[in-house]
């Protein structure tokens, strides 16, 4: 077999099968990553982008094996640095659709610096953050999103670290697209990936992903049929923020605080509720702060989405501008002779 897949080229519409590489997928059986892989392949087949224009870039960790399983261009790089490689790629070939597959350790711990800078620069990449709140590949140490007190291989007496909030971090970095989805809600996952693919600029997607070996059930409260109606809030632009088995619950703004209300008890009417507005940064910031443990449901969906110029467009734009302005000096000999020179005869 070869690292190059020899699927015949054709103009016909590709299917998810066309995005499967010939490599055997080696995640643990039952890992949430399988669902993300399949949904991504499906979303790519639905997009109007040629297969060769997709590049998957990753760092190190379970999630970072992702590029090997995608029949696209792929670069499995070093721990935490995928955003930097992706930035280089986008500056040279801005028309490529670049995806970053990363985890909570890769992106938020060793790669924290690169993550904040790629987001603030608004490089046109899609960041898929597989958040399972544990280190899987190194066998079960706590991660920057693990809860305080977490018992892990490296913290037998409980983690002394306070976790960070990926969505608040991204918004703090001036993100232009911030979303959250779940590995166990395939439809929502697909929709969110699709929306991310369509975004121009950095699309930051936190995917709550289950590690069934080292942190099984971490997100079950938000994925189980019985509990998810009350524990999650589905965001739909223009719609009131409602949740609950019969959409009887809602969220109202009380001064600067998000307040849960039960409409069935007459605490509020539907028109009193906030309406989801992904263009409103203050709303996004407030929603991002919900931990799911504070009496409010965990927001799922696109929290924030705005348009802003992309880094690579500005970088390439400067090169084009300089080339247009100084075309006469566009050769080595003119360059070397520019400035002050003198002749010795």
């Amino acid at each position, binding site marked *: 077999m070869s690292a190059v897949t020899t699927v015949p080229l054709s103009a016909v519409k590709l299917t998810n099968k066309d995005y499967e*590489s010939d490599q055997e997928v080696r995640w643990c059986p039952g890992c949430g990553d399988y669902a993300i892989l399949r949904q991504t392949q499906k979303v790519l087949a639905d997009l109007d982008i040629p297969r060769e224009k997709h590049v998957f870039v990753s760092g190190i960790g379970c999630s970072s094996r992702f*590029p090997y399983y995608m029949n696209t261009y792929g*670069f499995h790089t070093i721990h935490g640095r995928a955003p930097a490689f992706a930035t280089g790629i986008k500056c040279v070939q801005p028309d490529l659709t670049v995806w970053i597959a990363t985890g909570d350790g890769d992106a938020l711990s060793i790669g924290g610096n690169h993550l904040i800078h790629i987001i603030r620069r608004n490089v046109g990449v899609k960041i898929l953050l597989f958040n399972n709140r544990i280190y899987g590949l190194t066998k079960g140490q706590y991660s920057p999103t693990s809860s305080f007190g977490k018992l892990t291989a490296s913290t037998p007496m409980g983690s002394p670290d306070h976790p960070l909030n990926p969505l608040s971090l991204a918004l703090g970095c001036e993100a232009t697209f911030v979303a959250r989805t779940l590995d166990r809600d395939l439809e929502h996952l697909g929709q969110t990936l699709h929306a991310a693919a369509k975004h121009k600029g950095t699309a930051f997607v936190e995917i709550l992903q289950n590690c069934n070996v080292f942190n099984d059930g971490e997100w079950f409260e938000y994925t189980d049929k019985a509990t998810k109606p009350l524990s999650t809030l589905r965001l739909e632009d223009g719609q009131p923020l409602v949740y609950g088995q019969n959409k009887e619950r809602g969220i109202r703004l009380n001064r600067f605080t998000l307040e849960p209300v039960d409409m069935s008890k007459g605490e509020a009417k539907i028109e009193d509720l906030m309406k989801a507005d992904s263009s409103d940064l203050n709303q996004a910031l407030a929603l991002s702060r919900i931990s799911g443990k504070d009496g409010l449901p965990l927001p799922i969906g696109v929290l924030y989405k705005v348009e802003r110029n992309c880094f690579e467009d500005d970088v390439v734009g400067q090169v084009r501008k300089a080339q247009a302005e100084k075309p006469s000096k566009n050769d*080595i000999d003119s360059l*070397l002779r520019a400035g002050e020179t003198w002749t010795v005869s």
Partner: protein
Amino acid sequence: MLSTTETVDIKKTVKPVQATKDVVIYFAGDSGDGIQAIGGQFGHTCVRMGNDIVTFPDFPAEIRAPAGTQAGVSGYQLRFGSGEVLTPGDNYDALIALNPAALQARVKGLKTNGLLIINTDKFRETDLKKAQCKTNPLDDGSLDGYQIFRVDLTKLTRAAVFETPLPATLSTREGDRCQNFFALGMVCWLYQRSLEPTVQYIKSKFGKRAEIAEANQRALRAGWVYCENTETFASSYEIAPAKHAPGLYRHITGNQATALGLVAAGQKAELPVFLASYPITPASDILHQLSRYKNMNVTTVQAEDEIAAACMAIGASFAGALGCTSTSGPGLDLKQEALSLAISTELPLIVVDVQRGGPSTGLPTKTEQADLLAAIYGRHGECPAPIIAASSPSDCFFAVYEAARIAIKYRTPVIFLTDGYLANGAEPWLIPSSKTLAPIVHKQLVERNGVMPFDRDPDTMARQWVRIGTPGLEYRVGGLEKDQKTGNISYDPDNHEAMGYLRKAKIDRIEREIPPTVIDGPESGDLLLVGWGSTHGAIKSAMGRQRQAGQKGISQIHLRFLNPLPPDLGDILKRFKHVLVPEMNMGQLSMLIRAKYVLPAKPLNKVKGQPFTITEISNAIEAILGGK
């Protein structure tokens, strides 16, 4: 008092002029005194007047170190002559000391009976205290061996600057900042240098503030007129132009040459140049320079850190550009893991390491050659990369061009070593024609034609450089070990060993790119001097001195390739009774030579953050061969 409007022809002195061949001059002052500006400007003037020069700027790491202290002394050593100039000189003929700290810190380098110009306005008790002078050197007899010229530089500058109204108000403080140009005016008189290049420089530098431009010009002229009109100096010196090869020349520093070399390589290879760097002394100017060449299809990014800079450059190479990153020692450490990925994935990359004094933050503004082993062996695993070093400021152009040619042809990172001395040092440069530059050949795979990404070029052993985005060639690559044929992940033990030897063989093969080693001197003899990098001039000068003293059996070779080493090196070494390896480290190349060729190469080491003097190397030669 002196007047700038006085009718003095500032082009020609009426006093006697003595001819001399070679002058070493040292400007010293506080780090805010503008020493680097006047040193650079004086060098530029000398170059324009046809002299050969070598410069050695030597300044503290702090932008404004504590005023008046020895730690804050900024210096600029410059040698100019009518013959070939190879080093900045061991001792100086003239020292211009703008304060007691500068005097204390630098006077020991002044030749006996050398010219010492002192700003007496800066010898108040507080100034002496800051400089840690227990007694006043102006009257304690410690300067008796020199020709001292006491000048009230601050007062004279003030008088000149404020003599008539300026185009706009200038504070006394701003006026005082012109005293470096008064000093430069004096030195220009002393060596009969034209003021015109400096006037042009002042106009372009301060053009937006006419009053500052005018004040500096007044100070400059006043310095010249002061020497001509007062009895301080009885005569001046004249240095005839050097006999340069005919052609078109420019003035160039090592960092400028490095930037230009990268642009030239991109143009020759018809590849976009992508440079990502994080600011670091003394390499930042490479980023500054390249960011001005965007019209030459150059993209620059100031990355968030050293690691990101290397990774962005590798990403750019993966996407089909010539990826480059520039740094100094601490940055090289940080980039090593990324470099190992580029070696493992076989992508071209240029890493420029402008070496400085280490370890750790070390001596940021000083020079050293102690990164050689880090460059060759600094990565985990068996991880070979070619190493190329430049030997003079202008050689940075040709050496980095060669580094790029090798990187592209063999699809490998190349570490290009310069140092602080080369980076900031300047010299006149006979501008080459682009036609004389070697072609840079590469075949980027841009269409599906049956060739696979991991198929190897039988000549170079390099794998294919696939332009990503090409239909039908979608492939995945990473840092995990790759199957030799398919490039798929492989944990097979035999394959891993085979890949290790393959990576080594590919780099070893580059030795065929190295031209026959040039031996300066007899082909065999008593002593071979082996050098690399910026020590070339000092070694050559020391050899010249010993030859003049009657030592005939000395030769010099200077290595551009440090990995792989030249294939003829072993034979050459064996033809000499002694081998001496001068290096600004604790014996890194000498260790490599001893290990590889099993012969008793002698190290000559210096790790003071300062280049070798000719005398140091000359003495070492004498110690081996005995004086003649």
